[in-house]
C-alpha cells in the first residue's frame, strides 16, 4: 500500500536538497502528516511560499504551489484567498521572510484575520544567504553580520502575531514533531488567520557559528528549552528567561475577513442576509 503521506509529496523531486541535519524536512514531514489527518483535498488547496531554504518546501509538496518573492508570500496568498475564498491556503515562510522583509504583510494579514494558515520555519537566521541575523535571532548570538554577537533584541513572533490580531497562534519544534503536526491540524481547521511557528535547526548557518553542535544536538537544545504552555503560564518571566513556550498559545474567535467582505458586498448590492 502506498504510504499515506506520499500522495502529498512530489516524490520525483525527492530527495530534498537541504543540508544534512537541517530541520526543514521534519517540518515538511509534519505538514504532510497534518494533511493526511485532515484528509486534505489537493484540488482545493494552494501552498504559497516566499524565498529561502524553508520556502523550497513548497516545491516538494504535490499541490498547486506558488513560489513567490522574498517576504511577500502573505500578500500573494491574500490575493488567492480573496479571489477564491473556498480554497484552503497554506503559507510557508522563513523567519526572515515573515518577520524581516515581510513583517509588514504579517501584521496586516493578522489584523484582517484572513483565513490563511501560516507556517513559519524559525531557524533563527537567514539560512539561504549564509547566516545573517534575522529579527528572530536571539540576542547575543553570532552571525555573519554580527561577528561579535548580536545587540538587537529579537521579536517574539507569536506575541507579535497575537497582538496584531491573529486568532490562532501556536509554536512547536522539530523535536516535538507530533505536537507540531497536531498544531498544524488545529491551525488549518481554525477559521481566521493562524500562525504556527516551527522552531527548526539550521546547523550550517546558525548552529555552527553558535557552537550548538549537529542537527541532532540542536534538537536536544529544542527539547531542553521548550516549555509546555500550561507549565509556562505558571512560571515567572525570570524562570522563562532563555526558554520558550510550546503548544497552543492563543485562540480566539473574530470575524473572518473574506466572510465580512462577502457580507459587505451583498449589503452594497442590496441582497438581504440569509436566515
Amino acid at each position, binding site marked *: 500500500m502506498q504510504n499515506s503521506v506520499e500522495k502529498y509529496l512530489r516524490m520525483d523531486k525527492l530527495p530534498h536538497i537541504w543540508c544534512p541535519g537541517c530541520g526543514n524536512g521534519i517540518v515538511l514531514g509534519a505538514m504532510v502528516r497534518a494533511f493526511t489527518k485532515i484528509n486534505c483535498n489537493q484540488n482545493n488547496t494552494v501552498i504559497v511560499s516566499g*524565498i529561502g531554504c524553508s520556502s523550497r518546501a513548497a516545491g516538494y509538496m504535490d499541490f498547486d504551489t506558488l*513560489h513567490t*518573492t*522574498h*517576504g511577500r508570500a502573505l500578500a500573494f496568498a491574500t490575493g488567492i484567498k480573496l479571489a477564491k475564498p473556498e480554497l484552503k491556503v497554506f503559507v510557508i515562510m522563513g523567519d526572515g521572510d515573515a518577520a*524581516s*522583509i515581510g*513583517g509588514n504583510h504579517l501584521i496586516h494579514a493578522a489584523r484582517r484575520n484572513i483565513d490563511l494558515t501560516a507556517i513559519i520555519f524559525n531557524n533563527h537566521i*537567514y539560512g*539561504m*544567504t*549564509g547566516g*545573517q*541575523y534575522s*529579527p528572530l535571532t536571539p540576542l547575543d548570538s553570532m552571525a*555573519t*553580520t*554580527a*561577528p*561579535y554577537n548580536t545587540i538587537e533584541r529579537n521579536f517574539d513572533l507569536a506575541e507579535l502575531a497575537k497582538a496584531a490580531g491573529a486568532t490562532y497562534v501556536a509554536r512547536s519544534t522539530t523535536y516535538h514533531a507530533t505536537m507540531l503536526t497536531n498544531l498544524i491540524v488545529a491551525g488549518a481547521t481554525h477559521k481566521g488567520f493562524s500562525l504556527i511557528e516551527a522552531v527548526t535547526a539550521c546547523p550550517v548557518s546558525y548552529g555552527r557559528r553558535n557552537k550548538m553542535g549537529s542537527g541532532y544536538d540542536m534538537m536536544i537544545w529544542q527539547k531542553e528549552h521548550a516549555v509546555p504552555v500550561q507549565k509556562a503560564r505558571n512560571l515567572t518571566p525570570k524562570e522563562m528567561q532563555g526558554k520558550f513556550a510550546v503548544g497552543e498559545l492563543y485562540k480566539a474567535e473574530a470575524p473572518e475577513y473574506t466572510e465580512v467582505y462577502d457580507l459587505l458586498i451583498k449589503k452594497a448590492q442590496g441582497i438581504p442576509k440569509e436566515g
Partner: protein
Amino acid sequence: MSIKDRLSGNEAVAIAMRQINPDVMSAFPITPSTEIPQTFSSFVANGQVDTAFIPVESEHSAMSAAIGSQAAGARSLTATSSCGLALMWEVLYVAASNRLPIALALVNRTLSGPININCDHSDSMGARDSGWIQIYSENNQEAYDNFVQAYRIAEHAAVRLPIMICQDGFITSAAVENIELLADRDVQGFVGEYHPESYLLNSKQPLAIGPYAVSAYCMEAKRAQLEALKNAKQVTLDVAKEFAALSGREYGLFEEYKLADADYAMVIIGSAAGTAKDAVDQLRAAGQKVGLLKIRLFRPFPGEEIAAALQKSKVIACMDRTESFNGRCGPLGAEVKSALFDAQLMPPVINYVYGLGGRDVTVEDFITVFAQLAEIEQTNDGGKKYRYLSLRE
C-alpha cells in the same frame, strides 16, 4: 606602489570600500552580492573603518537609509543584486533626483522568473533610466578600480549623482583572480574627504530635501538633473586620467580592442568581453579583421563617441545580456543603433541576446557570431536582426 593579491570580485570591492572608509553602509543580503556587506561588516566590527553599518530589514530600507545618511552629509554606500535592486526602485529615483552621490556596488543577477541566482544584466538594465550613473566591469581588477573612482565622479560639483558600479554575478564576484591593489593611503588621497556643499542639520543653511514641486517647476528640476548626468561623461574621463597617473591602469568611456581597422565589430558589456577578446585574437591570428568595443560607461551613454569608434565597421553585433521585452532589440542594441543613426551611419546591426540566467558563453559562440557577421557582408543579406545566441530550441 601596487600590492599584488588574489581576490574574488566581491572581496576586491569590499577592500575598496575599506580603503575609502565611508561614513555609512546600509545593506541587506542577497546572492551573489552578500559577501560584500558581509566582508565589510567584519571590517566595521574589527575597527578597521569608521563606518556605521546598518543591517536593515530589506533593500528598500537599505537605499532609504543611504539616502537619509547621504542627505545628512555622510558618504554612504550599499551593495545588492537582482530583486534587491528591483525592491529599491522607488527610492533609486529619489536618490538621483535629490542629487545624492551614493555609491552602489551592484553584482548583476537576473530578475525572477524563473527564479535563478545567476548572472545577466536584467537588474541594472531595468534601472538604466533611474538617473544613476552606471559603470560596468569586465573583471575583478576593473570592479576594484571602478569602485575606487566612483565617488570622484559621483561627488564632482558638476555631477552630484548616485553611481552604480556593476560586475557580473558569480563570474567575477565569486571567481578569485590575481589583482593589484593600491595602498590604503593612495586610495584615501585619491578619493579625498567628502565635503558636501549642503546637508541636513547645518544650522547656517536650513534645507528641505525632496519637497513637492508643482508643475511649474517639476520639469525644470528634471532638466537640471539631465545636465548633471551629461556632465558625468567628461568627469569620468578626467577622473580616469588621474587614476591612470596613480595606478598605471587606463580607463575611458569604453575600451576598443583591435577595433580601429575591424570590418566586423562586436559591442559588449561585462565579463563576457574577456571571452570575446579570445575569439577576436583567434580570428585575427587567422587573418580576419574583427574587433571589439567594450562598454564601461553606460549611463550617461556615450553615443557620439561610440558611433565614431564604429564608423569603419561594416557589420556590427550588439550583445545584450538581458531581454528587455520590447519585441525588437535589447537595451544595448537600441542605444548603439540610435547612436549610429544620429551619426548617419547605417551598417547592418545584429542584436544578440546571450547568457541569460547564467547561460555559459564560450569563445566558440563568439566565433559563430563573427562568422554570421561575415556572412551578412558577403551575401548582403542581413537576415534576422534580433537573435538569441546558444539557445536550446
